[in-house]
């Protein structure tokens, strides 16, 4: 189990956040009862995280991770389009079950080196060598 993420909170939820045009951040939390079901091996320990386009529901990417890893980054296949994430668990008898569905988020569109050209430097002051 991951101590860092404190993934067992109160509810079965998945969230999708934009990081930049080539990365979404996905995180999820489990209710105690669902976490206990995983711990009792009612589900396989690997869950499937699937990114789908909101417009046509086309599957845009998927990856398998441990149920208790709590977070991951995924690359959105197209900039400017909206996506959401579904999380699936597999029962011992092989049935796949949709456990979580996230909010929808649009992937940002790239602009050429925006940060370097815009002169943001709040962090520059903080980072100056002592």
């Amino acid at each position: 189990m991951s101590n860092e993420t404190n993934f067992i909170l109160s509810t079965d939820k998945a969230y999708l956040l934009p990081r930049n045009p080539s990365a979404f951040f996905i995180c999820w939390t489990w209710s105690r009862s669902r976490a206990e079901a995983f711990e009792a091996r009612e589900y396989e320990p690997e869950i499937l995280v699937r990114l789908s386009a909101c417009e046509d529901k086309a599957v845009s990417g998927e990856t398998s991770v441990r149920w208790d890893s709590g977070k991951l980054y995924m690359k959105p296949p197209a900039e400017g389009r909206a996506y959401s994430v579904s999380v699936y668990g597999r029962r011992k008898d092989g049935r796949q079950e949709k456990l979580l569905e996230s909010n929808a988020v649009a992937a940002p569109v790239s602009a050429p080196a925006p940060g370097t050209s815009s002169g943001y430097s709040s962090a520059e002051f903080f980072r100056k060598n002592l």
Partner: protein
Amino acid sequence: MSSKGSLLFLLHAHLPYVNHPEHADFLEENWFFEGVVETYIPLISVLDRLVRDGIRPGIAISISPTLGAMLENEQLEKKLTRYIDSRLELIEKELLRTENDPVLSKIVHLYARLYEEAAGMIHKYSGDLITPLKQLQHAGHIEIITTSATHAVLPLLAHPEALRAQIAAAADDYFDRFNTKASGFWLPECAYDPRVQTYLKLSGFEYIFTESHAVNFADPAPKTGVYASYRTPNGINIFARDADSSREVWSAKFGYPGDPSYREFYRDMGYDADYDYIKPYLSADGLRRSLGLKYHRITGEVDLSKKLYYDPDEAMAAVERHAADFLDRRMRQVEELHSGKGIRPVIVGCYDAELFGHWWFEGPAFLESVLRKIRADRLPLQFVTPGEYLNSCHEPAGLNPQISSWGENGYFDPWVNETNDAIYPKVLDVTDRMIETANRFRSQDLSSVTLRALNQAAREVLLAQSSDWPFLMYIGSHSQYAAARVDGHAANAARLLSEVLERRVDEKFLGDLEKKNNLFHRLDFRLFASVSKF
């Protein structure tokens, strides 16, 4: 002389809410004391001097609700007075110690004036620094706007209810503080996504500021670039930051603040002086820390130990040079746009207020010099506030800005990365619980205690969403404190919500939180209820 273009300056004043009445002395509260002495009071003094000399500053200032709450907090005011008195005592000793050293003595006198000015202004306004700002706005010299309730990066709020609460709580807070409705809204970190439009409109805001690529890379990209205002489909006006004027002022490396004659921020007598001499002025833990008395100049790319002494006259000469250079560049920019594209541009410069004075010691003098030179040199440029510009410009063209921020790389990397992403499950989960509970109780008759507990839970959720915590974790400064703040606010909210559901609110716990996290006095937890349920 009629102007060929307008300059619009927005200073964004913000500090995270740090209030620890349970401690006589708390390290992170120094952020506030340093901000007041080194930035807010010097800026108010600059504005007062300009007005006294018949020069209308015409700049905009955003004051975050968390900073506003700290400026009105009586306990922090008492601690601030102690902080200033303690520095004045040390400065008194320094004046004696350096009286035979003309170079050092000149610098110490500079600090004596800075802290005496701070003490004088606090005395003059009985500790309430909102009053002079309110007066300046009321007289039409400046325009004050607000930002999201606790400076949350809005695109990172997954729940629309949370977006609404951050924006609506800020609108109410502004009204209570300034006795008028806010027109402008500073998007924290210039972070924009299209969802914000709806909630800004619902709360009555009229304009926002975005990063330049939000406008330059809109589809279709406007021909007038960042040199005009635009309007979103639902009627929110947009100003975009001009990269050139930002870089000249902002960048420690390429901009004016890196000039060798300016004061060096990182060399401080808290590290240099004899330990026993400065011990009475350190925090209770006795560790060496910055005391705000910095006697050296940037000098160049040399080790801190090799820095030369600061020369205030030389620094002021650099200020004059830089102010002239800044205006010369703006004039050339305006001429080029005016003759080349046939437009009368508005050049928008947005800066963190704390850059002026705290980080860049000479920043307030630079601002004053720029404003005076426009008048003295009769330049065909005028400073305008956003409201004035919108009242006088043509109907803005329609535009859908791109998702963006002014952070490193232009999106949200500083606030979502491997150093800080562990906070999001906690923040999002407790937000979710707040919304669920608000929906459940929104139309019920509630006892006073239940209502107080729900309202305090809403405050705690808002505080957990502040952009400062992930940013501090990212830059590795006060990261443990930042992580503890997220954990603490999320845990406080979760406990209050559970106690409400179980009908056993611990009034002692609630009362302590109300005393400590006592901002947004008329916050109503129903701001978190789902809009569709109204």
